[in-house]
């Protein structure tokens, strides 16, 4: 009998206690604050890029860069092994494979260039979180260029200061437009948007497609995602 009462009391206390303690563990405040901050990402689909170079020209024009210089380049790759027959055409020496990789600033969440920059010229835009340059502060020490694991920074020969792809933050994005390369791409190989917004096209795309990041093991958390070609030929 007494045993029963003890159990009932124990259960009561347990119930009341959990009701009192449970709300302490839930805080909604943090989550809404995080939702408000955007995380701009770009997706490069290797299956769609044909290497036309339109993105490079658009970049050059949009950001008023010196002749022939863009903040993005394309690397042509081949899975053929030297000396062996090409898996596509069967020849031993060919240039038939059109597989491209976008090379540009990876917009790291944990960006080495930002942490090493002595003057704060390489900085994260407080509103958008995009890594960009304050050219008026850059001393041209090239520490950011040495520190970038992606070799994605360069010295602008006209301004003598370091430069990187900032998703057109200071040119197109400032006007509410998409980055110039994304606008220019006729093959939909580039997608840009806010990954923190669950309804954005880029979030939905990343939810259904396998994407990879370059050198993710370095812990820089790049915001550029790549959808690689995983199957070749028939």
């Amino acid at each position, binding site marked *: 009998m007494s045993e029963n009462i003890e159990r009932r009391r124990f259960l009561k206390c347990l119930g009341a206690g959990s009701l009192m303690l449970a709300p302490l563990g839930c805080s909604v405040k943090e989550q809404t604050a995080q939702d408000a901050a955007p995380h701009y990402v770009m997706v490069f689909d*290797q299956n769609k890029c044909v290497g036309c170079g339109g993105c490079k020209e658009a970049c050059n024009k949009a950001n008023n860069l010196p002749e022939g210089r863009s*903040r993005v*380049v394309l*690397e042509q*790759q081949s899975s053929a092994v030297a000396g062996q027959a090409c898996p596509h055409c069967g020849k031993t020496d060919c240039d038939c494979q059109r597989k491209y*990789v976008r*090379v*540009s600033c990876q917009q790291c969440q944990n960006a*080495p260039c930002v*942490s*090493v*920059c*002595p*003057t*704060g*010229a390489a900085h994260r835009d407080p509103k958008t979180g995009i890594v960009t340059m304050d050219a008026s*502060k*850059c*001393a*041209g*020490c*090239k*520490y950011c*260029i*040495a*520190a*970038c*694991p*992606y*070799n*994605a*920074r*360069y*010295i602008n020969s006209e301004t*003598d*200061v370091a430069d990187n792809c900032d998703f057109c933050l200071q040119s197109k994005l400032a006007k509410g437009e998409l980055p110039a390369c994304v606008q220019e791409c006729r093959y939909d190989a580039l997608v840009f948007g806010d990954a923190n917004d669950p309804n954005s096209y880029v979030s939905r795309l990343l939810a259904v497609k*396998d994407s*990879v990041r*370059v*050198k993710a093991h*370095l812990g820089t958390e790049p915001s550029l995602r*790549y959808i*690689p070609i*995983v199957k070749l030929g028939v």
Partner: protein
Amino acid sequence: MDGTLEFTMGLSEGVAWPWPIAVYLFFAGISGGALSVALFIRFYKQQSANTPFLKASALIAFVTIALGMLCLVLDLTNPLFFWRILVYYNLNSVMSVGVIALSAYIPLVALIALFALEEEIRRLPMLAPLLPLIDKLRPWRRSGEALVLVLALAVCAYTGFLISALIRFPIINTSVLPALFVASGLSAGAAAAKMLAVGLFKEDRHSSDMQILHGAEWPIMFAEALFLFMIIMSLVTGNAGAQSAFEAFHTGSWSMVFWLGVVGVGFGGPLLLNFATGERFSHSSQAFYLSGLCAVSGMMCLRMFILYAGQNFAI
């Protein structure tokens, strides 16, 4: 999806930090090393006179750090932008912390040099305007020396931290690098100051200061060799990136710089000159200067090797 995508191209060409930076690392190491050793001896022996070794060290420390600054400024893409680094600060950046240390270190070194070279300044009429300044600042000498000792070691170490922050280069991105740079800075700095003390300030090659230096240089050299061995071992036993960077030690022209310059000249030179030759030669002034030059050029080769071989092997 392991290793499915990678690119090898980049937007900048060649190494980001070329030889002027290695020369700067060399000068900063000599400057900090020479001054630390001189002040160590000064505090240890409680000297109050301006010894020839202190004079030589102060002079070398000031001249080398000034030349080092010249290298740094000239390596900027536009040297006229150098003021920005003095105006804007980012305390997360090793370089920014180094700028703060250097902007305290350089004027203090100048001050130490003024005190140490007081007699010489008195002898030169064109430097007479400096004398009232020396007299006015004299009460600060002791505290200035203590502070500059800390800063001198900090400058030596900072040059190591400066480049070890570069995460993509396994040879450079190692926590042993600041210790290696302090050790090699001390040994090369002491060697340079020793030569100047004997050559210019007429120090006796067998004076008690020189005896202390002679006793200290072998343990320091041993520490230097040990730190290098630690870096090599961590590369050999490290991950794939570290193992591929180990190639720098046995392929290409930079491996020659390491084995001939750092190991052969830097370590082998002084050892052979002191222990493998007859007593008459090893106590001669030729051997004294030759082994000093070996230590200094070995250190220069070390900085060149670390910077170039380091940047050539990226993950």
